[in-house]
C-alpha cells in the first residue's frame, strides 16, 4: 500500500544525499587544494560552503514538518531521526572542509615542507568512508556501514603518523613550523571527517536494524 507520507520521506532522502554530495565534493576539493597547491580550488570550497549550510536548514525544516504531520513509527521514525543526525554530521564535514581550504591558503604561502605520502592515503580512506556511509544509507546496507566503522582506526593511526613525522621536521627546521603545523591541523580535520562518517554509518545501522552501536560500554540492558 502506498502511504501518503512516502513522498515526503523520499524527498527527505534525496535532499540528504544531495547535501552528502556537496560535502563529499567540498572535502575532495579542499584536499586537492593542498596536494596540488591550487589556490583557486580552495577559494571555491569557501564559496560553496553556503550551499551546504542552506541545505542543512532546509532538511531540518523538512524533518520538523514530517515529524509534526505524520506520527511516524518504527523504521520510518528511525529513518527521520537518522536523517536529522546525519544532516548535522554533513554540515560539520562541510565546516572541516572549509578549515582545510583555509589551511591550504596559508600552506601555499610557503615552500612545500615535504612530499605528501600519508595525507593522500588518509584523504582517500576518509573520502571512501563518507561515500560508503551514504551508499549504506541508500542501500540499507548494514555490512557496508560496519566496514566504515572498521576503517576509523586506520585513519587515527595515519593522523598519529603524520603528527610524529611533521614534528620531526619542525624540530629540525624552525622555518617550516607554520606550514607543518597547518598540515597537522589538516590531518586532524580529516580525522574528524572520518569520525563524522563513522557517526553516519552508526545512524544507518540504527535506522536499518534499530540497534544503537554507539558507545558499546554504555549499559543499555
Amino acid at each position, binding site marked *: *500500500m502506498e*502511504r501518503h507520507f512516502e513522498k515526503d520521506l523520499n524527498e527527505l532522502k534525496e535532499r540528504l544525499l544531495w547535501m552528502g554530495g556537496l560535502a563529499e565534493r567540498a572535502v575532495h576539493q579542499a584536499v586537492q587544494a593542498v596536494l596540488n597547491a591550487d589556490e583557486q580550488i580552495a577559494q571555491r570550497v569557501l564559496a560553496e560552503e553556503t550551499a551546504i549550510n542552506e541545505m542543512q536548514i532546509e532538511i531540518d525544516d523538512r524533518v520538523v514538518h514530517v515529524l509534526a504531520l505524520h506520527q*511516524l*513509527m*518504527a*523504521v*520510518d*521514525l*528511525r529513518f527521520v531521526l537518522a536523517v536529522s543526525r546525519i544532516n548535522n554530521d554533513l554540515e560539520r564535514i562541510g565546516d572541516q572542509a572549509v578549515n582545510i581550504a583555509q589551511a591550504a591558503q596559508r600552506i601555499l604561502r610557503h615552500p612545500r615542507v615535504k612530499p605528501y605520502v600519508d595525507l593522500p592515503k588518509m584523504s582517500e580512506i576518509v573520502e571512501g568512508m563518507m561515500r560508503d556511509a551514504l551508499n549504506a544509507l541508500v542501500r540499507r546496507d548494514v555490512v557496508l556501514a560496519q566496514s566504515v566503522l572498521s576503517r576509523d582506526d586506520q585513519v587515527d593511526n595515519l593522523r598519529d603518523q603524520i603528527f610524529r613525522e611533521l614534528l620531526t621536521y619542525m624540530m629540525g627546521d624552525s622555518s617550516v613550523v607554520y606550514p607543518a603545523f597547518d598540515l597537522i591541523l589538516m590531518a586532524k580535520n580529516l580525522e574528524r571527517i572520518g569520525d563524522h562518517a563513522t557517526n553516519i554509518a552508526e545512524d544507518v545501522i540504527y535506522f536499518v536494524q534499530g540497534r544503537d552501536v554507539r558507545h558499546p*560500554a554504555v549499559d543499555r540492558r
Partner: protein
Amino acid sequence: MPSTANSSVSLAAGLPASPGRELAGEHSMRMNISKLNFYYGEKQVLFDISLGVAAARLTALIGPSGCGKSTLLRTLNRMHETVRNARLDGEITLDGQSIFLQDVTQFRRRIGMVFQKPNPFPKSIFDNVAYGPRINGASRPLSDVVEASLRRAALWDEVKDQLHKSAYELSGGQQQRLCIARALAVEPEVLLLDEPCSALDPISTAKVEELLVQLKSSCTIVIVTHNMQQAARVSDFTAFLLNGSLIEFSPTPQLFTTPADSRTEAYITGRFG
C-alpha cells in the same frame, strides 16, 4: 579520581528509568493469560494467546479490525459467557487464581469495564456513580465515595455544583469520564476499556488519556484501541494481535521504535490495516 564508570553511575542515580527499559517479565503480574483459545461456534477467533498484565501499569491491545483484541478484552471479565455458542480453553488468572472458578458476580466487582460509547444510566450524575456502591454496600458515606470517584476521574470540578442533574446533560467526553468514575466507585483492581475515546472529540480524548495516565499508578488498566498513537502515548506495554494470534508483546517504547516482528512493523507504519 573516580573511574568514568563509577562517575556515570553516581551521576545517573536518582534519575527516573529510561523509557522502554522496563520489561513485563520484571514486573509483578495482576492477571495472566495462558494458552487461550477462543471460539464463536465452530469459528476460532483467538489462537494460543499467552500474556501477562502487569500490576499498576497500562497494557494496550492493538491490531486491525477483526484481529480479536476486543474479544480478548472481554474474556478478562468473562463477558464472553453472555454470548451464545462462545467457548474458550486455556487459563486466565487474577492474582494467581483462576477467574473461571470464582463466583462471576463477585469476580466482576473486581474488574471495571468502560465501553466505546459512553453509556450513563438515565439517572443523575450522583446516582450514576453511587449505583455500584449502593448495591454492594459502601463502607463509607455515599457522598464521599461519589466525590472521590469523580475526582479520580478528573470530573469533580466540572460537575460538583450539578450532581443532581441528569447524566445525559453532560457532553460526550464528560459522560465517558462519568462512566470511568462509575467503574472506579466500586474500587476495581483492574479496569478494562474498549475503545474508550473512539466517540470523543480530540479535547475530550486528551482529558481521558490524561486521566488514564494518572489512574494507572493505582489501578491496573487494559485498553483496546484502534488509535496507535493513543497506545503509544498512554500505555506501558503493548500487545499486537493479528488474525487472532499474539504477534508481539513488548514495552511500548520498544514496540513503537524497534518492533521485533516484521508484521508489527508493517502494521504500525501503516503498510496494512
